[in-house]
């Protein structure tokens, strides 16, 4: 008996079982979170059927089925009894004030899927669910009795989009036309408040500037007038295109088609049409700008900001970290000092990221950025250029944050270079630097890339330090565009991680924004995985090249 127990102990079965269990728990949690994000994130874009529910209170609702749950209700004796209830997304926020409602299942008297129920996705106030009563397109009008009312509505919609586009173009032309004048006026007002503006010379200059401003105003006056008239005409035309829509409760409303992103009849769509719609929504999500305080539309600026920031961070952290590791490993005399440095670098990885954010704010933004503004952008002060949060400072802050990871991984890569190879290089009369450059660095490249992979994973998911170094809820411009100098390092940017926080917890309409949070989280994971796959691919190619000598 005792022999058997001791053999059992020797084999260590309980420990093997415990370690296996640990792995199962970890894997299970990862799978679970990914599954949740996948299912919720991907189902968001599927067009839901519209259900019309009439309750015993004679109220009628039209909307998408959202959730079902057991609510607890107290009966007359104070006993808790479960009651089934259904959550319905009823939209029409401008009319009802909220997007969702709960209906007790026992109160439902009638449930139908009306064929001609329409979902309107609007630029403002979220979705509208209802029925088309009439189409107004300029002088043309079609009533509810028209046989092809929906087709007419689509035609009107296309026309309204065109008008909207023309309006935007006209407005741009107006801004462009008045741009020199605006700039001049800005200079005048800056000079007025500055001390130089009060000297004789300054006053004279002001006078001159005012004169040229007046002259400029006169020069563009006619063209500007023409554009204004065109704008007003277009605006009136655009306002003339609208639908009369009716809610399930019978309320009628005018819906201007230029404010509608898209509309469709989900109850008439087959799987194919829905898939097509789904693809379109997915594309909108990754390629468009956000709407409705980020709860709708796309996240393209956030994707762009995240990727550019990670790239800038990598460019900053890799050379810096690799150089530090090389010096620490190859040149520095090993002793208590290098041990202390190594320990500090490792501990740096444990510093809360918000502390790095505060450091970035104090050092990069206020000190470095402020100095740059004083030196190179003093004409714009007091408006800061680099002395405020921006993508460069955020990237550098994250580079600092991920530096320990790169240093440690690079050091490991350097240690893995066979001593025989180093000695071989030195024995051939190479200097230490030649040895590092030609033998050590190429051999350590896989280790360096491992560091980069870890840095990317850590950096892309970090939000806290970004919040005080340049991330914003909505950035009107991208960090990279077609205007000189193309890469605008001073600009603020959007980030997927911050987007998740903002949409999920700071949005005025959290319930409606919830699916967006899942989709954004999914996208962030996909991007991190993609960046990692690229780095891993490069690393594996290098590994093949530098596979150690077989003997």
């Amino acid at each position, binding site marked *: 008996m005792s022999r058997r127990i001791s053999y059992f102990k020797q084999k260590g079965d309980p420990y093997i079982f415990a370690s296996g269990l640990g792995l199962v728990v970890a894997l299970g949690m990862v799978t679970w979170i990914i599954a949740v994000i996948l299912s919720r994130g991907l189902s968001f874009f599927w067009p839901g059927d519209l259900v019309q529910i009439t309750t015993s209170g004679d109220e009628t609702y039209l909307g998408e089925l959202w959730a079902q749950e057991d609510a607890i209700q107290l009966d007359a004796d104070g006993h808790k009894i479960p009651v089934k209830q259904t959550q319905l997304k009823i939209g029409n926020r401008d009319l009802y004030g909220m997007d969702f409602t709960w209906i007790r299942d026992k109160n439902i008297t009638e449930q139908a899927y009306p064929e001609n129920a329409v979902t309107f996705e609007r630029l403002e106030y979220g979705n509208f669910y209802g029925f088309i009563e009439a189409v107004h397109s300029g002088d043309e009008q079609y009533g509810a009795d028209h046989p092809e009312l929906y087709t007419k509505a689509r035609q009107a919609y296309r026309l309204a989009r065109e008008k909207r586009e023309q309006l935007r173009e006209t407005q741009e032309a107006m801004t462009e036309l008045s741009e020199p004048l605006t700039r001049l006026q800005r200079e005048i007002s800056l000079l007025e408040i500055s001390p130089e503006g009060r000297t004789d010379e300054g006053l004279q200059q002001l006078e001159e500037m005012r004169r040229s401003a007046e002259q400029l105003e006169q020069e563009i006056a006619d063209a500007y007038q023409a554009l204004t008239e065109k704008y007003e005409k277009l605006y009136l035309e655009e306002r003339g295109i609208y639908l009369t829509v009716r809610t399930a409760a019978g309320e009628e409303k005018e819906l201007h088609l230029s404010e509608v992103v898209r509309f469709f009849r989900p109850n008439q769509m087959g799987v194919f049409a829905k898939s097509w719609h789904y693809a379109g929504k997915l594309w909108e999500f990754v390629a468009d700008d956000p709407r409705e305080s980020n709860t709708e539309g796309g996240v393209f600026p956030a994707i762009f900001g995240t990727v550019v920031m990670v790239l800038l961070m990598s460019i900053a952290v890799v050379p810096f970290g690799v150089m530090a590791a090389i010096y620490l490993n190859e040149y520095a005399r090993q002793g208590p000092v290098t041990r202390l440095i190594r320990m500090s670098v490792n501990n740096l990885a444990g510093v809360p990221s918000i502390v790095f954010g505060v450091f970035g704010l104090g050092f990069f933004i206020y000190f470095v950025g402020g100095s740059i503004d004083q030196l190179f952008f003093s004409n714009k002060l007091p408006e800061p250029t680099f002395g405020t949060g921006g993508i460069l400072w955020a990237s550098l802050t994250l580079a600092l944050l991920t530096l320990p990871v790169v240093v440690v991984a690079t050091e490991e890569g350097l240690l893995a270079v066979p001593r025989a190879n180093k000695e071989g290089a030195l*024995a051939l009369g*190479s200097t230490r630097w030649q040895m590092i450059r030609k*033998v050590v660095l190429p051999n350590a490249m896989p280790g360096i890339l491992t560091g980069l992979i870890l840095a990317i994973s850590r950096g892309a998911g970090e939000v806290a330090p970004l919040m005080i170094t340049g991330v914003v809820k909505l950035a009107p411009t991208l960090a990279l565009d077609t205007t000189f100098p193309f890469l605008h390092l001073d600009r603020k940017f959007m980030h997927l991680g911050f987007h998740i926080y903002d949409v999920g917890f700071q949005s005025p309409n959290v319930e409606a924004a919830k699916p967006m949070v899942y989709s954004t989280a999914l996208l962030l994971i996909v991007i991190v995985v993609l960046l990692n796959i690229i780095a891993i691919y490069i690393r594996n190619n290098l590994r093949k090249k530098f596979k150690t000598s077989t003997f």
Partner: protein
Amino acid sequence: MVNIQEDIAVTTPTEPQEIPAAKPFLANERIVIETQRLDFYYNPEAHALKNINIQIPDKKVTAFIGPSGCGKSTLLRCFNRMNDLIAGAYLTGKVLIDGEDVYDSKIRLEELRKNVGMVFQKSNPFPMTIRENVTFGPKVNGITGKDELEEIVVSSLKQADLWREVKDRLDASALDLSGGQQQRLCIARTLANKPEIILMDEPASALDPISTGKIEETINELKKDYTIVIVTHNMQQAARISDYTAFMMLGEMVEMDSTKRIFTNPTVKMTEDYITGRFG
């Protein structure tokens, strides 16, 4: 933690000692390497070489034999200062190559190592192509001419008896060669620097008999043009290829003489015991 340090402490003993005169059997040879009262310490407690006075003749093969840990490799590594890489190690005395003390501060380390090439026990080709392996030395020593490098590649590989086998795949990875070929590549790589002296640290100990035979042939060819110092565990090998043999024991040079004499009629009893296999 591998640490490689450039500096090594050299202290000269204060009391003058008499340097032994040249050995009679070397009377007709030109001496290339000479050590004078060489003591080497890995650290103050590890006294690895004790008062070594050795003279190594030009264009001959000199073999160091002796049991493991007797200091053969340490002595060899003093000649091209590879021991500098060991943290905390230091030595006293002199190592003269062509009459110049290699531990003199005026000596440029890279120059010395170019002139005194080394082949290691375990072949250590770089993870590059065969051609890049051969041109590594010339390149780091400042030769850039394409034609010149190409010529060096051909001649070095020919001297190392590898040209025939690899001439069609110079741009293949050196790591794809067999163990013996890799070691001959390492010899070729050393030859590419056109050294005066080649140090070999048990170059064939990890190879099969056929590869070993080839290496030995190569060494026989090379001794016409180079001074070769070889450390070996294999006494037959020492007998086959060397002109002179030095027997070391516990950090001391027990005896050095012509190979023939060492293997047939050694002066010291300990040498005879070792060679006949009574210990070691």
